[in-house]
């Protein structure tokens, strides 16, 4: 033993080279006292058969913070105990013997200020492919006040958007131009004009309308603006249409956004698939240019829908409110897309409340103060129609954009008639709700009465009265399984 490198080997049990369990490496601390400045995460984990859930939780804490698979002496050059995330609580998921909830606390300094990319590179970076766990899902996060203050949040959000549009006390109304693909610019603008004239506040590009051979983006923007301005003159109201600026590169997106502003659009749109960094950039652009930013959650169901693996959508809601989008699609409950009522309520609360209170029945696992980040307006879109107005009012409240695509454009008497049917149905329900009537029970009658003064509404009710999407939800709360019923 004459070699210096051998003589200086570390003898302490913790730092002796080799592989030791993560929980012994300092990534498990059942007595940990949570700091106000900690980032907290709740994971749903399914350990591989035979793996101790506490060791799995510690492994997740390790891999999502400082650890690697083996002991490294360079830890000793850092205040490593501070930087180690600590799993501090593990419990069985109700009614399951294979899944566990694992709570993990992270020191705030592990994350770069104002960067969703950095936050997510740690939290969801490597661990989801970890062999020791069969499946892993990020269920919820508590972002500390101090860290939230480094994010811009929505530039306009619910309140400012309402002031700009001059619409108070009722949900906003929108529609997606259909067919999604194939229309020429001129025909596209026609749909925008008719819908807005009929009483909608917004029309909208679909997620996959960018700049295809059948309609290039400049053509679309110009014709849409003609439709918007024509409708605004015709109705004396502020109108808009989400111009989707999603494109291959940031340079393309900035170019399209600049043009949208130049032609006078009050709102632009981006898709979730452009990525967190691009979303943050476009939100800063929106703030600088007085433009509302609408986010379509295209792609989210690939990782949010299955209960055992991925990210719960409420976490995406938090990241997107931090990023600064003004609108985000957050579910309809009664429409054609996935959405357990309790889970959707949790998403809406996450986007709209100024402070969150732990409430496991809606999937909110942490108290969290939003640090004055503005409210992000939820958008309900996908297979909804005016016959469901009482249910939509009850389930989604007033601060929401209700978007009826097929439910507007599919009206037998045309797009304007479809729009008017939706607007009159909505107004009748808000009137009744404010009057203190039992609008949930009396809903169908309230609509029928409103339809006496509005033929387009009668036609729509007759056409869609029996359309429902009743399937059990996949992503449910762990207390009950609620079918998404729209029976009246």
């Amino acid at each position: 033993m004459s070699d210096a490198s051998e003589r200086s080997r570390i003898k302490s049990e913790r730092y002796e080279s080799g592989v030791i369990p993560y929980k012994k490496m300092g990534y498990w601390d059942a007595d940990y006292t949570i700091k106000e400045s900690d980032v907290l995460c709740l994971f749903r984990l399914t350990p591989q058969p035979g793996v101790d859930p506490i060791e799995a939780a510690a492994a997740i804490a390790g891999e999502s913070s400082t650890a690697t698979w083996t002991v490294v002496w360079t830890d000793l050059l850092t205040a490593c105990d501070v930087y180690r995330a600590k799993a501090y609580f593990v419990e069985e998921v109700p009614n399951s013997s294979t899944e566990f909830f694992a709570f993990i606390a992270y020191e705030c300094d592990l994350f770069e200020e104002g960067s969703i990319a950095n936050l997510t590179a740690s939290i969801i970076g490597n661990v989801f492919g970890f062999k020791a766990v069969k499946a892993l899902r990020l269920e919820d996060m508590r972002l500390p006040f101090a860290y939230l203050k480094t994010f811009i949040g929505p530039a306009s959000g619910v309140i400012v958007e309402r002031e700009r549009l001059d619409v108070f006390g009722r949900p906003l109304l929108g529609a997606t131009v259909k067919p999604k693909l194939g229309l020429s610019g001129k025909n596209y603008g026609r749909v925008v004009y008719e819908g807005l004239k009929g009483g909608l506040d917004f029309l909208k590009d679909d997620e996959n309308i960018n700049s295809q051979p059948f309609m290039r983006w400049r053509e679309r923007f110009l014709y849409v603006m003609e439709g918007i301005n024509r409708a605004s003159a015709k109705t004396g109201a502020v109108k808009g249409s989400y111009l989707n600026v999603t494109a291959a590169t940031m340079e393309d997106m900035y170019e399209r956004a600049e043009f949208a502003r130049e032609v006078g659009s009050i709102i632009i749109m981006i898709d979730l698939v452009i990525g967190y960094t691009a979303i943050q950039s476009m939100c800063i652009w929106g703030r600088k240019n007085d433009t509302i930013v609408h986010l379509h959650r295209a792609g989210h169901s690939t990782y949010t829908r299955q209960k055992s693996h991925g990210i719960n959508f409420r976490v995406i809601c938090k990241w997107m409110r931090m990023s600064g989008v003004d609108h985000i699609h957050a579910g309809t409950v009664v429409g054609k897309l996935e959405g357990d009522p309790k889970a959707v309520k949790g998403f809406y609360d996450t986007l709209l409340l100024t402070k969150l209170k732990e409430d496991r029945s809606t999937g909110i696992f942490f108290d969290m103060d939003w640090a004055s980040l503005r409210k992000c307006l939820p958008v309900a879109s996908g297979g909804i129609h005016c016959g469901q107005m009482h249910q939509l009012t009850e389930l989604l409240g007033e601060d929401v954009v209700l978007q009826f695509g097929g439910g507007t454009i599919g009206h037998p008497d045309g797009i304007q008639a479809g729009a008017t049917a939706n607007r009159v149905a909505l107004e009748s329900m808000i009137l009744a709700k404010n009057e203190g009537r039992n609008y949930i029970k009396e809903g169908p009658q309230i609509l029928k009465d409103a339809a006496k003064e509005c033929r387009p509404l009668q036609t729509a009710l007759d056409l869609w009265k029996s359309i429902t999407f009743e399937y059990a939800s996949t992503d449910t709360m762990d207390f009950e399984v609620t079918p998404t019923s729209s029976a009246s």
Partner: protein
Amino acid sequence: MVRIQQGAFSLSPDLTDDQIKKQIEYATKKKFAIAIEYTDDPHPRNCYWEMWGLPLFDLPDASAILYEINECRKAYPNQYVKVNAFDNTRGVESTALSFIVQRPAFEPGFYLNRQEGKGRNIIYTIQSYAVQSATEGSRY
């Protein structure tokens, strides 16, 4: 002739006094302050209508508020009158409900002016026929 779509209930039939009163009761129960505003310049971007006095911060009585609405309607029978309910809760601090309670018998609407810009770009301006045709106070 158009029907201006501003306000929460503008595509429904004009509200009766009884309906207006119920909306006011809803608002005052939620501790919103009612404000009455009128104008003969209903341009979509005109966010400053004339105020019929201050918002009625200390008046929770729906009948008394309806009385003020009617006084305003009597004073300006040919103008637009709207009722705003203001919510000063932290995180809102803005209007929580707004609806039109009177409109002129004839609404001539707006003219869309198009100025040809660069390329195919058009610069749009919305102008009110009524505002252009007469001075303030004698437009409808």
